[in-house]
């Protein structure tokens, strides 16, 4: 589904190299986890894949469903199914959550040449998903993420993800700020989206989330590249022994 080859990216006008020859392949239907110490380049990877300004790709390539992902605008990547659950979801004052999401969904449908979703269908879907995620209807009328707690913002990311039904999902530290109950709700939502034609990349510090969302592969990212990989049990080993062995 996604093939990352020798990805090298810098910030601060090339003064600092964050990703340094990263190779990674996530086939459709698989969930891969990326773990690693602070500053390894985990969040940078998520931003480079989604096209945020300020990150310069100086080498390497990313092939997504046979296309050159890096050549696309952020909104085109989104329309083609790339979704990032942000580590720190943004507050959008003045734009009600439902308006925001309906605009996003219809923009994606339009970009794919599909018909927009009608208001009643949209509402029906939103209500059902909100209820699964234990999101109160009143939150959907409020401006997106404004005044929400850290946990509520994370739940709202999953809500958006379930509404937009992306193909390739990147989750950046989704577990931070969540209590155990919220973590279970979020994990149930994510697990419900697992399917043979969907790929996921889960970025996390801790193994805790991986108890709930069991990955197919676990990779260690250190100093901008993948330095070790293993199966789900490998995450438990990492949790116990730390990242020292893989430090640059």
């Amino acid at each position, binding site marked *: 589904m996604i093939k990352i080859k020798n990805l090298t990216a810098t910030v601060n006008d090339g003064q600092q190299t964050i990703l340094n020859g990263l190779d990674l392949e996530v086939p459709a239907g698989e969930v891969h986890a990326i773990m690693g110490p602070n500053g390894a380049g985990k969040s940078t990877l998520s931003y480079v894949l989604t096209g945020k300004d300020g990150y310069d790709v100086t080498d390497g390539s990313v092939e997504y469903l046979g296309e050159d992902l890096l050549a696309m*605008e*952020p*909104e085109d*990547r989104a329309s083609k199914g790339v*979704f990032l659950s942000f580590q720190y979801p943004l507050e*959008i004052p*003045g734009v009600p959550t439902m308006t925001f999401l309906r605009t996003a969904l219809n*923009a994606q449908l339009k*970009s794919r040449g599909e018909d927009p979703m009608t208001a009643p269908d949209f509402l029906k879907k939103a209500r059902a998903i909100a209820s699964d995620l234990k999101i109160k209807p009143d939150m959907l009328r409020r401006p997106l993420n404004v005044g929400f707690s850290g946990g509520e913002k994370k739940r709202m990311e999953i809500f958006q993800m379930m509404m937009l039904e992306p193909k390739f999902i990147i989750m950046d530290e989704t577990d931070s700020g969540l209590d155990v109950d919220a973590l279970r709700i979020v994990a149930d939502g994510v697990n419900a989206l697992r399917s043979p034609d969907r790929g996921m990349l889960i970025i996390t510090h801790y193994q805790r989330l991986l108890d709930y969302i069991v990955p197919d592969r676990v990779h260690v990212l250190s100093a901008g590249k993948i330095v070790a990989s293993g199966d789900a049990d490998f995450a438990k080993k990492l949790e116990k022994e730390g990242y020292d062995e893989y430090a640059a």
Partner: protein
Amino acid sequence: MNTQPNFTPAETALGGVLPHRRMEAWKWTDVRKTLKGGTGLTLVCEPHFEIPEGVNVSRETILPKTSVMGAIASRFALESIVINVPEGFKSTQVLRISNLEKGHASLCIKLAKGAVLHVEEVHKTSVSGFVNLDMQFDLAQGAKLTRTIFHHDHAETTRIATAHINAWADAEITQHTLSFGAALTRFETRVALLGANIKADIHGAYLLGDKRHVDMTSYIDFSNESAIVRQSVKGVVSDKARGVFQGKFHVRRPAQFTDAEMRHDALMLSDTCEIRAKPELEIYADDVACAHGNTIGALDESSLFYMRQRGIPLGQARSLLTQAFVADAFETMEEGAKEDFLTRISTWLEARL
């Protein structure tokens, strides 16, 4: 050496010095420089009125005015149009004032005790022109005035609209202004809070493109107790346009327990546009809560990226964020009028972003 300045052709026609940049109150809105031509400046403005039943209109001799533009208006308008709203008046009908397309006018709207009136002003031209309006609103005890001002002029028009609002005890003022600017525009609101317990909400927004200019100036004179005033002006400026905000709260010694807030927030959408802001507080009473705030910035890049990551194209993301930013100024507006303003704003944004 004390020399009389040379009159411009416009000043010769109007018979006096026009406000210019060396006058503190007009330093960013130079009428003399903008108003070049000497023709069509001395016309009489003939406003159209849609008058609610029970309100009467008469014409009276104009009393002398002290302000520069007010004095010019009284010289050329010949008569003052006086609208009397009787005691306890209440109506679902709006007093609509339009055809403010050229020339000078002097208007006086008097609300008797407990009268409630909604005034809708349409300041619009489709060809270039010069408009100079001097308006007065007198609010007797307990009167309630709602003023909705819509402005969309031809790019070459110069418009000065000054409103003096005199309010007595328990009066309420709600004013919302939406302006898309012109060659030179100034909406000036001067409020005298003469009685106690007056409530005033004075909000507005300007959205400017090309080389348009708008100046929203206000002066609120607090001279009695317990006034509650909220003022918020939002600006969106692009291209080579210029937005000016001058706001002053003058809280006199008897105006104890005043609760007043002033905000001006502006977004600059280009590197060549300009915002000039001067929020001022002058306070002599010692038991008051007064605040002012002023921010100028660009759209938040992180928010834009977040929206694009969800599939919203850049132009639409900018438009949504800007609309939300501006809409805040019209939060306290009545539903119908609010919808109308928001539609006009989104139409303007969609054409530009």
